[in-house]
């Protein structure tokens, strides 16, 4: 009982870790604790949190989607290409989000309708979407679409598409008061996802499927439809992450976010989600994402090379899972022993 209480407060632990982290870093370098700096420094890494929130929903069902990082780039380049093709930026944003959701829904459809491991499906999609993202400019040229500038769409393939309108880049650089837009968007997405997960039927379905898709099916949960929807939502979140990053860098690129995969999955797992499904929280993911993000910022502020960051992140990922496994084993052993003693006693008393 004590142990489940402990795991229920996993988010609380993360919050404590975050506070300690900030305090320690602040003690070493007081400049770090300047609220405005602190808030604006999140813009460097919130795209990880946005994508991780989407992935939390997917991992809740016991699945996984590693193609999100490709969808980030795909959404970014779709936005850029629509822009240079002369479309209004608002339309380009909607198109990019639609492409991301569609890509996710496609993942979900293949996963729901076949028994192929989600990891394999989304590995193929990882290549497919990143390939489409890099190949799209030349394809548009071949199809004869017209772009601004001399070199056609292909000219934008490698250096990225700059010159995006202020109304869009404001999403990346602007803010309301001290709070930067990327953080606002992240919090918004996290709140909506958290609401979906804890307050709606859909969120409960995710959990039920994650604990047992077979029991869910026998109970009448629309398993396939739920899976397709959740992968679509993940695609949507990845697209949002891609657009936020695009606005922040003021440049649309097809390879945006490619290295984020480790951080995204670590944020989800460190946030308390079980890779086997049925367990996890959006709040946990959000906090874990902040812990990881500030860790990097802090180390940089301390003048430590950022090269050790992935080492620490990797160890955190492995360590947090190993810790959970160890405590689970102990718990089961104790419970079985206790049950045996009770039964034994009962039998002895009955003289049997």
């Amino acid at each position, binding site marked *: 009982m004590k142990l489940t209480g402990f795991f229920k407060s996993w988010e609380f632990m993360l919050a404590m870790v975050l506070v300690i982290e900030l305090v320690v870093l602040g003690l070493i370098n007081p400049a770090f604790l300047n609220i405005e700096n602190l808030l604006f420094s999140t813009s460097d890494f919130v795209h990880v949190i946005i994508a991780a929130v989407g992935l939390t929903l997917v991992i809740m069902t016991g699945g996984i989607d590693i193609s999100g990082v490709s969808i980030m780039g795909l959404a970014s380049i779709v936005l850029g290409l629509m822009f240079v093709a002369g479309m209004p930026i608002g339309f380009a944003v909607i198109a990019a989000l639609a492409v991301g959701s569609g890509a996710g829904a496609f993942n979900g459809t293949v996963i729901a309708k076949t028994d192929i491991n989600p990891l394999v499906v989304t590995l193929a999609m990882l*290549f497919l979407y990143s390939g489409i993202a*890099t190949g799209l400019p030349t394809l548009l040229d071949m199809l004869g679409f017209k772009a601004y500038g001399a070199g056609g769409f292909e000219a934008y393939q490698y250096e990225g598409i700059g010159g995006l309108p202020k109304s869009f880049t404001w999403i990346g650089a602007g803010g309301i008061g001290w709070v930067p837009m990327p953080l606002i968007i992240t919090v918004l997405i996290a709140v909506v996802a958290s609401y979906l997960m804890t307050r709606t039927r859909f969120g409960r379905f995710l959990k039920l499927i994650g604990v047992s898709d077979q029991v869910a099916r026998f109970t009448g949960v629309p398993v396939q439809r739920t899976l397709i929807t959740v992968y679509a939502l993940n695609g949507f979140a990845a697209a949002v992450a891609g657009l936020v990053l695009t606005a922040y860098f003021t440049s649309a690129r097809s390879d945006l976010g490619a290295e984020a995969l480790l951080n995204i999955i670590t944020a989800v797992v460190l946030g308390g989600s079980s890779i086997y499904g049925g367990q996890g929280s959006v709040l946990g993911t959000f906090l874990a994402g902040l812990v990881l993000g500030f860790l990097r910022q802090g180390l940089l502020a301390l003048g430590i*090379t950022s090269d050790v960051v992935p080492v620490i992140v990797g160890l955190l990922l492995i360590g947090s899972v190993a810790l959970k496994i160890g405590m689970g084993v102990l718990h089961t052993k104790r419970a079985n022993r206790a049950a045996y003693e009770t039964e034994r006693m009962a039998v002895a008393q009955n003289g049997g």
Partner: protein
Amino acid sequence: MMRILKSREFLVLVLLVVMILSVATVNKAVLYPITLINILNSSLFLMLLAIGQMFVVLTRGIDVSVGATAGLSAVIFGFALNAGLPLPLAMLAALVTGLLGGMVNGLGVAFVGIPPIIMTLGTLGAYRGLMRVLTGGSWIESIPQNIKSFAVTRYLSVPLMVWTMVAVVIVVALLLWKLKPARYFYAVGDNYDGAYLLGINVKMTRFWAFSLAGAFAGAAAVVFVGQIGFVPMQTGNGQELKAIAAVVLGGVSLMGGTGSIWSAVIGALFLTAVDSMMIFLKVPGSWNNAVAGFVLLAVVVFDFLIRRTVRNRRLAARAAEMRRSELDHDGAGAPALVQTPEATS
């Protein structure tokens, strides 16, 4: 014989040949021996990673750290050479680095019980970070250029490395086929509980699968550094996913137990050939990933459809067998039994 023809390896091999031949109708240069040899040569790195990956996937695991392990091994290889170690010793150092990297994965997965994807994703970050920490983030150049000698040496106009690879593949194939403990990889992946019940040390088997994946990544690092003559920071970047794609494409099921070294070899060749074919077709290289992803998706979905058909047929056959047996015996039939209770009671 039929079994070979029906195998996934063969299917992908046919696809490969068809692809090369159809590209040849557009550009004959594809069929020049030098082209084919070059494809072979440039597939070596991926092939070694894929062979290592095969062991892990056979046992129903997955290793996304092999690229990073190769990178780390390459750095150690470079250091060793720059420190003046003789080539064989430096090679050994790279192999041992890879082996150790794999053993860490094996420990975590087999003995602690961490899910493979989590464990190897963690070490992916750790090894790649370690690689940068060791080198301070800069490339290792100024490697004694004699190491390139074994990369450029050719017999019968085929690079020495390709010959070595052929030997390695044959040896591994023989071992996998004949060596009893090597068959444990298959048994553990095919039926984990069954293997355990039959007395196979399933944990040790999984441990060695990851260790071998690491060792092969070390070997891949040697090939890579030999071919380009320096150690860039990107060594092995993203290659882990390609290695997984290669073995899955070649017919190693992520559900374990199926596939062979030929899966890894043909899968790696196919993915490398796709890149080359794009060049001959003058398709921009930017489409390579899309094609690779599409092929992988198409093959696994096709494979799913075949498996489903086979399974349905087998169930139907069994039901028919049951029914025939019923007809043979049921002279009396079920309703007659209802009359008998009086006799028994």
